[in-house]
């Protein structure tokens, strides 16, 4: 266990006082390494809360720069950061909140050529990206590298959160057990043009952050094997069962995917239009 400074004991006192966390748990958080894909709507609350919680090393990947249209929901950035790489802006905000946190920035796209090597250094992966090809890539890479993945997605007024750790728990599904492959181009909305209620990103992202902290600490009931579905218009969360699919092309009995694959970006709105 690490030796806390006086300042750290005070900073983390509300965690340390929780029997489920304690000094040992806080120490574990400070020694944890989390990698996040996306410094946008979901990445903002996730990064903010993980930094506040004292997760010691946070890697964050995003190839984009801050744009004024982001600020309706991406609360880790601000007006003065417009034009700045999002990962740099996120690092400034996180370190201003908590100088204990080391932030590694990856100001480029996650691809099949770099993803496995990057995530190898981390304990837990959080996906808050904005497209299907990356979601499948990250899922597959996490499976091959045996990393737990907390996946969050949203659309207009709806959100989904799930934890995937097929390598850790017998019967635990991966993302491909839920959706074996990306929808064909034009059948499912996947772009920001569809619109998004800004505060929804906070609701979904903070659930991801809570689950991440639970996974790092090993407390409570894991979300693995469940899909949380949030409907903001009805203000309703549903918890649906996810099963490991014996026919899953990645983690099933006879896998057909044995290496990373890259899908083309599908970016149309036909599914609901």
């Amino acid at each position, binding site marked *: 266990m690490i030796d806390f400074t006086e300042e750290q004991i005070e900073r983390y006192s509300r965690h340390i006082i929780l029997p489920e966390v304690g000094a040992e748990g806080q120490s574990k958080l400070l020694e944890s390494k989390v990698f996040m894909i996306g410094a946008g709507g979901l990445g903002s609350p996730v990064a903010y809360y993980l930094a506040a919680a004292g997760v010691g090393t946070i890697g964050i990947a995003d190839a984009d720069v801050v744009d004024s249209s982001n600020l309706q929901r991406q609360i880790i950035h601000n007006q003065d950061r417009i034009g700045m790489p999002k990962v740099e802006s996120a690092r400034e905000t996180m370190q201003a909140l908590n100088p204990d946190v080391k932030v590694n920035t990856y100001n480029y796209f996650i691809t099949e050529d770099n993803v496995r090597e990057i995530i190898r250094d981390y304990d837990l992966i959080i996906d808050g990206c*904005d497209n299907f090809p990356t979601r499948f890539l990250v899922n597959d890479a996490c499976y091959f590298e045996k990393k737990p993945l907390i996946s969050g997605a949203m659309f207009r007024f709806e959100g989904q959160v799930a934890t995937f750790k097929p390598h850790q728990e017998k019967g635990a599904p991966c993302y491909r057990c839920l959706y074996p492959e990306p929808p064909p181009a034009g059948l499912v909305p996947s772009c920001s043009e569809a619109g998004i209620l800004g505060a929804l990103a906070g609701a979904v992202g903070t659930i991801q952050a809570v689950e991440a902290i639970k996974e790092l600490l090993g407390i409570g009931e894991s979300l693995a094997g469940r899909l949380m579905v949030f409907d903001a*218009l009805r203000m309703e969360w549903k918890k*649906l069962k996810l099963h490991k699919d014996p026919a899953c092309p990645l983690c099933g009995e006879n896998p057909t995917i044995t290496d990373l694959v890259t899908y083309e970006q599908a970016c149309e709105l036909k599914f609901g239009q």
Partner: protein
Amino acid sequence: MSVSVRIPTPLRKLTGGADEVAIEGTNVGEIIENLEAAHPGLKERLCDDDGEIRRFVNVYVNDEDVRFLEGRGTVLKDGDEVSIVPAIAGGC
């Protein structure tokens, strides 16, 4: 028998904005056919040309995925709730 079917945001245009519709049917297949009759266009979004539920759309009865029950043949009982859960990818 009528069951309540939850419509996800991307498909609400087809139900006139309704987030929940009451549909007659004794199994999931009948529900899909009757959904189409009441709200034309829905079946195409849910099923492929062979009538199978698309792989990026999950249909749940209560909290259970029908793929792990009896698929379209999953029998419904009074008070069951059917939910349509499409894949979404936004994080931005």
